[in-house]
């Protein structure tokens, strides 16, 4: 969070301002009350629940960190976290690289129909992930998906988008389709705030288009890239909607612990182990916070170095 905190410049509190302090506290009160009730209370409750176990005899018993010990040895949870980590390592670089290329292409001024292209790439973000997944699920399908139809007409074997070895790639494609445009717009918006004088100066020094992209545009994009990366960490590790919907199409490939979040859901609502579900949620949240901080710290160190 270091990056963001430094962002907010701290104006010095003048005595005059302090006099109106009570009014200030009243402005933030509604937000803070709801924040306490809807953010901190569930968090605290999850932490509390994770320390207990429902026993057949004796009801709810305090078990200390037993649930965490179980969770850290739980092959299903570890497999789920491992899979979303793999997904993150493969899908996010591809998605951000594409978004970066598209943003640079749009900003280069070399494109015809630039506005149409920009809006067209952004439009999938307007499609709820549930509908995007239903749609791609049908497109992937062996019965009436156009890919299967075309390969059938060409007497080729149909691509197995929904098979075990292709599934992670098929999921990555859906998520990429949904979010490339969103990330592209963040990067593009950042590119457009670069002052024109920089380009003029660079051109006067004889820098070509590639040199300008490398030496001026990329460094200027660093904060925006950090932001997109951060949101991608949070999104990838929480992966739920896409696999949970494709599970209905390919139940043999996606089981109830395919991603960590699917596992938390099934522990809570299918096997109804409340305490263990709280533990799993807590661990998943912790993993996300740690990975996010790790990225922020490296991004900050690079910038100061």
């Amino acid at each position, binding site marked *: 969070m270091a990056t963001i905190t430094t962002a907010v410049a701290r104006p010095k509190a003048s005595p005059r301002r302090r006099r109106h302090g009570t009014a200030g506290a009243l402005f933030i009160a509604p937000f803070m009350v709801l924040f306490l009730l809807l953010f901190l209370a569930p968090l605290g409750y999850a932490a509390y629940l994770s320390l207990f176990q429902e026993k057949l005899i004796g009801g709810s018993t305090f078990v200390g960190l037993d649930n965490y010990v179980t969770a850290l040895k739980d092959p299903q949870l570890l497999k789920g976290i491992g899979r979303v980590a793999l997904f993150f390592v493969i899908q996010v670089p591809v998605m951000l690289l594409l978004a970066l290329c598209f943003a640079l292409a749009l900003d280069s001024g070399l494109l015809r129909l630039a506005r149409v292209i920009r809006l067209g790439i952004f439009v999938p973000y307007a499609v709820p992930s549930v509908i995007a997944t239903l749609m791609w699920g049908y497109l992937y399908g062996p019965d009436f998906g156009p890919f299967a139809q075309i390969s059938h007409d060409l007497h080729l074997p149909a691509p197995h988008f929904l098979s075990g070895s292709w599934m992670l790639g098929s999921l990555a494609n859906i998520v990429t389709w949904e979010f490339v445009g969103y990330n592209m717009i963040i990067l593009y918006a950042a590119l457009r*705030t670069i002052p024109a004088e920089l380009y003029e100066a660079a051109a006067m020094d004889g820098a070509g288009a590639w040199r300008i992209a490398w030496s001026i545009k990329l460094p200027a994009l660093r904060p925006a890239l950090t932001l997109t990366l951060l949101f991608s960490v949070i999104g990838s590790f929480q992966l739920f909607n896409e696999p949970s919907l494709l599970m209905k199409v390919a139940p043999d490939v996606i089981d109830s612990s395919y991603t960590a979040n699917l596992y938390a859901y099934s522990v809570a609502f299918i096997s109804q182990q409340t305490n263990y579900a709280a533990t799993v949620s807590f661990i998943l949240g912790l993993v996300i916070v740690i990975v996010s901080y790790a990225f922020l710290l490296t991004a900050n160190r690079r910038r100061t170095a």
Partner: protein
Amino acid sequence: MTTVTPTASTAGTAKRVEPESRALRRSSAHRRSTPLTIVMLAVLAYFLLPLFWLLIASTKSTQDLFNSFGLWFSHAPQLLSNIKATFTQDDGVYGRWLLNTVLYAGVSALGAALLAAAAGYGFAKYRFRGHGAAFNLVLGAIMIPTTALAIPTYLLFAKAGLVNTPWAVILPSLISPFGLYLMRIYAEDAVPDSLIEAARMDGAGELRIFTTIALRLLAPGLVTVVLFTLVATWNNYFLPLIMLNDPNLYPITVGLSSWAAQAQNGGAGASSDMLALVVTGSMISIIPLVIAFLLLQRYWQSGLATGGVKQ
């Protein structure tokens, strides 16, 4: 994949630089590149292909979905009867889902934006005991994944009797730590201290200053926060899925996925009518979103500019 939404302030920042720098850049790079345009048009085709398929598919009966080529119309297009069937299935529950979605997303977005604006203004323009601690607490929460909170929230709401009511979906969406962060940055610049002082001299109360002066100056930032919360709530699936079990309360995402599951269980064969309804229902529900996006896109871009620049 759930998104947390960047956004924020200064509709001005992006625009201010725009006219002259654009013009200058254009003049230096006057030529257009045809190869690059062709590559990007191919990229565009990839992004629009699924939507094109959906549009075509919504004109087909379930049989035609199986028997005709997916990327072109069948011999007997029947968009209107598909739409009618979608709205009459299960006593018109589809219309309820649309209304529920509008209600949940609308109330959440407006509420979240107002709460964030008041608190962001409070943090930007006042100093009080616990100021820094409270702000850092909220900032730290930006990274807490909403889905990790959803299950404990469900358990708490179950105890409070809120599960299976609209509140179960609306209340958790009212708090947007990122929205607060952005509104604070926005308020620092958009509402001048001198203006507040002048209003005080004139004898205006603090609340009156906020509602009559500050809120108006904060409007562009508010629109951005409204948009982001609106999309996040509109797209929400996990939260309503666990909170609601009465189909009459479902938003469109949960409703359509329940129909999709029925279509799947019906064997997904050509005999099941549900499939055409799922496809047509998906198509209808994204039309208002796509139109709203295209109309409001300048807010997205200007809002996103500072989200990504000011760090």
